[in-house]
């Protein structure tokens, strides 16, 4: 009974599904496309398709549905790009406008980083995430946590050293 009610046609469930899988899907797509914007677009389109097809997708199949749609979309785009390249000899499409270093980042590497972050002390991790993920200035973090800027800098510095060590070993 409960299972039947759990259908992504229900806007509340749909939002729940979105919050559950959006980031994973975006990450999955990012490592396929190497482009954040495209990843974001295809992610959004996949959810739109899910909504339109919500009646035909059982709740426990939602995740695989989303990833299949996203992957098909990826293949379509690639196919399309191939056609374009065939017809336009001089076509030099840069797949992405990110820096080359950016391209080097592999999915496994991100997992390594996440593991390294997990190995930080609570205090270091708190500051580190506020700085690197939430993009807050040291001053803002100091104000928020009611500590000195210097203390923030110290934690950041130590965090980086710890992470470097952990990742070297890993």
């Amino acid at each position, binding site marked *: 009974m409960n299972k039947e009610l759990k259908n992504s046609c229900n806007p509340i469930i749909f939002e729940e599904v979105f919050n559950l899988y959006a980031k994973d899907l975006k990450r999955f797509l990012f490592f396929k496309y190497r482009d*954040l914007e495209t990843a974001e677009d295809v992610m*959004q389109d996949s959810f739109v398709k899910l909504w339109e097809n919500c009646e035909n997708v059982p709740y426990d199949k939602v995740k695989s549905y989303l990833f299949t749609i996203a992957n098909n979309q990826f293949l379509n785009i690639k196919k399309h790009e191939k056609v374009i390249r065939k017809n336009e000899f001089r076509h030099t499409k840069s797949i992405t406008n990110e820096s080359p270093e*950016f391209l080097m*980042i592999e999915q496994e590497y991100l997992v390594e980083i996440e593991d390294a972050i997990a190995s930080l002390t609570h205090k270091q991790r708190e500051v580190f995430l506020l700085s690197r993920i939430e*993009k807050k200035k040291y001053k803002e973090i100091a104000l928020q946590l009611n500590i000195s800027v210097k203390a923030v800098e110290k934690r950041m510095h130590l965090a*980086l050293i710890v992470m470097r060590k952990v990742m070297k070993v890993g």
Partner: protein
Amino acid sequence: MEKKTKNNTEEFYLAQWLEGNLLDTDLSKLVSNEDVIAYKKLKNGLEVLSKLEQPVAPSFEKIQAKIQHNSSASKVRTLNYKWLASIAAMLLFFFGLYQYLGTDAVLNSADFGEQKTVALLDNSKVILNAKSAIKYSKKDWKNNRAVYLSGEAFFKVQKGSRFTVKTKRGDVTVLGTQFTVNATDDFFEVICFEGKVRVTDTNKEYILNPTQAYRKINGDDFENLNYNKKEPTWITGESTYKSVPLHYVISDLEKQYNIKIDAAKIDRKAVFTGVFTHKDKAIALQTVFGAMRLKYKNTTRNSIMLE
């Protein structure tokens, strides 16, 4: 102060470098080359992670917008068949209802002080006096020439099949002639001008010959009057009465001039014989009430009090 800042920078150089306050070249002076590469990669990796870990709420809003857009554009297409089916069903339903209830009825009415000439489907003509209405069904007019009347009207009927005027008080049947029917409240009067008219009251039948009139007031007294005109006078702009109870005359005045007359005090048995014009209110009131020796005054613009 200057020195302290510098010390500060050197003490937590990695933090400074991450924040962009220390150049890569400066970093390479402080750590090994290998470390610089590793830290740079880490910085980039964190950049990617940060972008991937951004809150997804804005994306959700965009998705909602896309869904909205799609449902107004393409998703409608999938529903179209259902819509078409339901529209077809509705049309069928209303058509059936229309057939069944005969909602093809045509209604014509004349308002206060108006006269209206209505041509029926067979060129029969109806002239409606003020505040009167007729209703008839277009559908089987050929087989059933029936008109529902409330108020007063003059009929000029083309020869042909039976023509019936139905009123609350009784039916009037003819084969082609000219006559008036006045069915106002409990006043029922039929005057025949040409041909023969059959009046069917609750259970009695009367045949009227030209210039004959049938009148029934309040459901009890029946009168047979003679009338020697070609057509009713109200068509030419005046109402003619022959021994008609005064309150009917008053109600006709009200209809012609869209006024309210307080006739609470008049004698219900008083009858009026005479004519009043439809063109001038003052004269009409003077003719009727003057003849009846009644005093009246205007209480407001459209209401009159009898004394």
